[in-house]
């Protein structure tokens, strides 16, 4: 085990889960709590070996609820924390994802999507959890979800996820899928100095003056950690800026919940990332994310070869939803094609944003994602 003594840098041939795990370590994650589940298990396995090398904690909890709870605890105790799971576990975690939202806990939840509902198809890919990512836990809140479509991105976006969650004190979801998780690809890992690492902002007031939920202008409160002498209280109940329960007050409820939503929506432009390919003059805009985006890209290229003005809008950020980009690219297009491995989830958001431009939905379930041919066919059919 002693051969890997430090952070990976340079070129490597890795699978998605391992890349994710290495990304976490690179991002400064020093606490992982999880529960084995296909197809996310390799992340846990790899971190159980790697974490100790960095003095970090790996623990396998009794279930996914415990895992996310422990992650929140560790984050409050000052460590960047993460858990990784798949559909069934993701469902279990929703309760405490809500707690993380309410207590504004920086943490990362990796959901390697497989076929659902329920135990569904453990070893096959899916994109059926993307709406759950936004609405999974009860109550209103803003959240951040990213969708990697390559092993390289499994690394890059994990780092990004930590940076966002630390910046906005919000649980950040990495919505991978079985294929990106299990496929092997070349990954180029920048040196430590080139990596952008963000850490949560600390309070700059004395403990007496400190209120754990007093927001700055960006609506994000500086975060003290347990043991630093601030002696603060946090609760899943609706609370005031001191963290004290306010279960009877409408004012506190609306102020708190509104801020939880707005701290994300107001910063959407800073958060959102998309990949735009040949959109300038595109008549047909293909919208895709995750593994499906890779078929879509080659379909778009084939279409151009055939003289069809097609373009690709790949969603890297799923939530907050990149409405502006969709609207922008849909403006001069004749049609927008949305390909997802579900029965139509993000397509609803696209339709909302595309205003009038006709939106065609291409669904695919089971063993493989859409082939480029299948997408090309739909492009052709919509000129």
């Amino acid at each position, binding site marked *: 085990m002693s051969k890997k003594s430090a952070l990976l840098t340079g070129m490597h041939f890795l699978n998605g889960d391992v890349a994710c795990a290495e990304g976490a370590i690179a991002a400064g994650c020093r606490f992982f709590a999880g529960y084995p589940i296909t197809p996310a298990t390799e992340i846990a396995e790899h971190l159980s070996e790697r974490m100790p090398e960095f003095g970090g904690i790996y623990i396998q909890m009794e279930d996914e609820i415990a895992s996310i709870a422990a992650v929140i605890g560790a984050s409050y105790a000052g460590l960047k924390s993460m858990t990784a799971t798949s559909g069934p576990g993701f469902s279990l975690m929703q309760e405490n994802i809500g707690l993380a939202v309410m207590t504004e806990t920086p943490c990362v939840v990796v959901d390697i999507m497989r076929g659902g509902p329920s135990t569904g198809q453990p070893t096959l890919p899916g994109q059926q959890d993307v709406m759950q990512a936004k609405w999974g836990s009860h109550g209103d809140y803003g959240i951040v979800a990213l969708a990697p479509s390559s092993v390289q991105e499994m690394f890059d976006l994990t780092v990004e996820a930590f940076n966002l969650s630390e910046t906005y004190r919000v649980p950040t979801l990495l919505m991978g899928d079985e294929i990106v998780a299990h496929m092997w690809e070349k990954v180029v890992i920048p040196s430590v100095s080139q990596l952008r690492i963000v850490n949560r902002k600390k309070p700059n007031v004395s403990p007496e003056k400190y209120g754990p939920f007093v927001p700055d202008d960006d609506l994000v409160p500086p975060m003290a950690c*347990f043991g630093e002498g601030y002696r603060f209280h946090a609760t899943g109940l609706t609370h005031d800026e001191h963290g004290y329960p306010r279960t009877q007050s409408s004012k506190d409820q609306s102020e708190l919940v509104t801020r939880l939503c707005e701290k994300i929506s107001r910063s959407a432009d800073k958060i959102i990332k998309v990949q735009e390919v040949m959109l300038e003059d595109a008549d047909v805009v293909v919208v895709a994310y995750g593994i499906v985006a890779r078929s879509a890209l080659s379909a778009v290229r084939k279409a151009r070869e055939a003289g069809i003005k097609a373009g690709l809008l790949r969603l890297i950020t799923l939530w907050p939803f990149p409405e502006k980009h969709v609207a922008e690219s849909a403006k001069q297009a004749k049609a927008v094609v949305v390909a997802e491995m579900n029965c139509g989830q993000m397509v609803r958001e696209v339709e909302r944003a595309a205003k009038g431009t006709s939106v065609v939905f291409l669904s695919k379930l089971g063993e493989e994602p859409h082939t480029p041919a299948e997408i090309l066919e739909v492009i052709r059919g919509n000129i």
Partner: protein
Amino acid sequence: MVQEIVHPFSKYLRSAMMPHIWCPGCGNGIVLNCFVQALDELQEDLDKLVVVSGIGCIGRTAGYVNADSFHTTHGRPIAFATGVKLANPELEVVIISGDGDLFAIGGNHFIHAARRNIGLKVVCANNFNYGMTGGQQGPTTPLEALTTTTPYGNIEHPFNLIHLAAASGATYVARWTTLHARRLTQSIKKMLDKEGFCFIEVISPCPEIFGRYNKMRSGLEMMEWFKRASVVDNFSVPSKAEITPEKIVVGEFVNIEKASYEKLLHEKISQINEQKVEW
């Protein structure tokens, strides 16, 4: 005459949160009182103390103690605290929660934390029912007891928490009633000085809810029951410590030495990193 009298323990409590929400005759206040008494006697560093609780009346305790504190969702305090303790073993992490929170919805977390022997200190105020939600049957409700969900008498066998904790591997297990406030305080002090997973069950009166349904309408009546029924029998057999209307065996049941999870974990980590140096 109207000069402000300051209680010696007020420095351990969050004045903003006082007075607490608990009913007259409720034992939770005594549990809190004994806890801060123990902190006082140990001169515990409040900056290094984290109090965690779950849902239920006693769950409010976290908010009342003037230390870092977290009020988790139903049943999760132990899972949450596990993260805290492992992330920063320097912290003294105490869970003060109820029988329903810790042993029904949170039962799985309890037994596994005990099995792992994580250095968490758990105090369970057992009031035999779900008080805050209006007095439903719970994992410790005695057979035949009346609750809002067992109107014909409870037919579920209650947990013997002492036996459960001991069997799950806790290094320190004790049970007292709120009437044994002094011994409870001493137990809490012992617990705070021990390594590994510790558990104290406190039988606590709930006159307004449980008592109302079971012919013990005042805290005094319930305390008199404790006085009548409790027998101090240290290190007696946990499996024989069931609670009956006639007999409540109290005392210390387990007090053993066993390396804690975090200790073993950090030993492993340093071993691994030494090996690297050798290489």
